[in-house]
């Protein structure tokens, strides 16, 4: 019941956000807002594995780019497929990759999982770079339709609305997990995996659920990307800044609850959009890196931790 109330509330917030954005009626608001929303999804997805179970995933870019390239493939083979269908496909493929990754490495110490995710990002990038059907290293062009298919307005408004919906879905999932048996299992793994295993928590199965769910959401977040950027090449799809941002946002916001990644993504995402326009994009990345390091040193519980004493 509490979940239903939360979802309704989140949908209301989303509807107000969309209405306000349409009222401002400036394309840049949608372009910048889309990126912030995308990071809400990525940070929340990362936190399901990283924050709840304590397994650090450095391979966000891989899951994200797999989603994006799924769209490129579908755009070439089934051009009439609606975007939500492509997102679902991207999510399923990324989720399955997450499951496979997890099965290979999650039985090891957590560090090995982290290193393996980093490795996987490069394997995936190499495969895509050598796959000429999706453009290889030259990249792929996607023509963005001019109008939104469901309501009147530019296509970017449609992308914005879809990402808004996806962030409501992922935040709701993250919140529901946090207050469920699954969530308690996850925290047990994070706090002491050996003790959890000994008390009968099916640790491997829970970790696999977390990896698949987290990877799937990341893939879904990546699926609309080709329509957003209209030109996608491996170097930008697999950019390390996705991984850094996705780790920095939950750690800055606070990893223990669903709210932390959202706060982190909104703050850091907005800050970066502003800094990219006013200063430079390299400098805005530097800010993210410095914030990440200073927060992990000085404020281990993140912004949420400041208010919970």
């Amino acid at each position: 019941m509490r979940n239903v109330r939360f979802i309704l509330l989140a949908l209301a917030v989303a509807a107000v956000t969309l209405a306000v954005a349409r009222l401002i009626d400036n394309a840049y608001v949608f372009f910048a807002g889309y990126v912030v929303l995308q990071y809400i999804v990525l940070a929340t997805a990362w936190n399901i594995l990283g924050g709840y179970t304590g397994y650090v995933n450095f391979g966000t870019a891989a899951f994200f780019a797999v989603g994006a390239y799924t769209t490129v493939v579908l755009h070439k083979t089934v051009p009439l497929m609606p975007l939500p269908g492509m997102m679902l496909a991207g999510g399923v493929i990324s989720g399955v990759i997450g499951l496979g990754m997890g099965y290979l490495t999650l039985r090891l110490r957590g560090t090995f999982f982290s290193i393996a995710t980093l490795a996987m990002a490069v394997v995936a990038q190499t495969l895509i770079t050598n796959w000429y059907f999706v453009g290889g290293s030259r990249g792929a062009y996607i023509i963005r339709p001019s109008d939104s298919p469901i309501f009147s307005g530019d296509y970017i408004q449609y992308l914005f609305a879809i990402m808004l919906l996806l962030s409501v879905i992922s935040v709701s999932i993250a919140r529901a997990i946090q207050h469920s048996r699954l969530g308690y299992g996850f925290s047990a793994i994070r706090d002491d995996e050996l003790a959890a295993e000994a008390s009968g928590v099916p640790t491997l199965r829970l970790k696999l659920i977390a990896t698949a769910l987290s990877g799937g959401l990341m893939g879904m977040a990546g699926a609309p990307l080709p329509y957003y950027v209209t030109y996608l090449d491996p170097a930008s799809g697999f950019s390390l800044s996705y991984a850094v941002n996705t780790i920095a946002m939950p750690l800055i916001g606070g990893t223990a609850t669903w709210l932390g990644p959202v706060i982190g993504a909104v703050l850091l995402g907005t800050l970066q959009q502003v800094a990219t326009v006013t200063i430079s994009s390299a400098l805005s990345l530097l800010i993210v890196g410095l914030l990440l390091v200073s927060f992990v040193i000085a404020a281990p519980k993140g912004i949420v931790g400041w208010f919970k004493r």
Partner: protein
Amino acid sequence: MDLSLDLLGNALVSGVLLGGFYAAVTIGVSISFGMLDIVNIAHPAFVILGSYTAYIANSAFGFDPILSSIVLLPAFYLLGVAIYHVYDVSFERRGDASIRGLAFFFGILFITEVILVLVFGVDYRLVDAPYVGPSLHIGVIDLPLRLLVPCLVSLTLIGVLQLYMSHTVIGRAVQAVAQDPMALRLMAADPSRIKRIAFGLSIASASIAGAILIIIQPVEPSIARDYIGRIFAICVMGGLGSFGGTVVAAMILGIMESLTSTFYGPSWSPAVAFGFLLITLAVRPAGLFGRS
């Protein structure tokens, strides 16, 4: 068939030389990750930093890159000591080294890269030295000095480190920390201090590794990432902290990469290291030479 045998021979030789160089890049991680259990994923960024300091010494003052990297060893050592101090105070003493420690080093990797981009731009940089151009020829086998010199420097570096670890008091203490920090504490030694020295050494090795990296290939800030997978693949396969294992694993990887790029094209070679790492982790996480 003659031609492809030549090709095979050359690919094998350059693989061995390349592997020797990889060993130098990895040895720092064999110390920090293998022996001290500090997951320093920022190590490749320090190697690239070493490349840039060698580049400045070479292009601005005309110094030999390898000699200048040896002169700079103390500076890198102090950098390592400083980083370990922050890490120790912020994470290890709080018993919170896993997630936040990883994120800390990831942040350092990223900050170093962005700063290098801001200072030097994304252009590829090269060094100039008498051994960059010529090759030795033995029969049909070519030995480019550009690869041979780094390989010899690397093996010397590892040899010196091995001697240090097995014949000095501090070196043996480092090995003791790797085996049982608690026991070391009971012997009235301070594990923190020993680890600080060892971590300083591991970062110092990045100075030399960076100098020989920029001799082998042109360098730009983001290539650090290509080395993360290679380094950890070698380190894990070499059995975490065994120097001999590191050299052998590095050579195996070098040979595999060299064969792949000779016969399938260089665009596939990054996947070799990572595929190798994934298989190693999945099948034999203790490494080829590790005690399981």
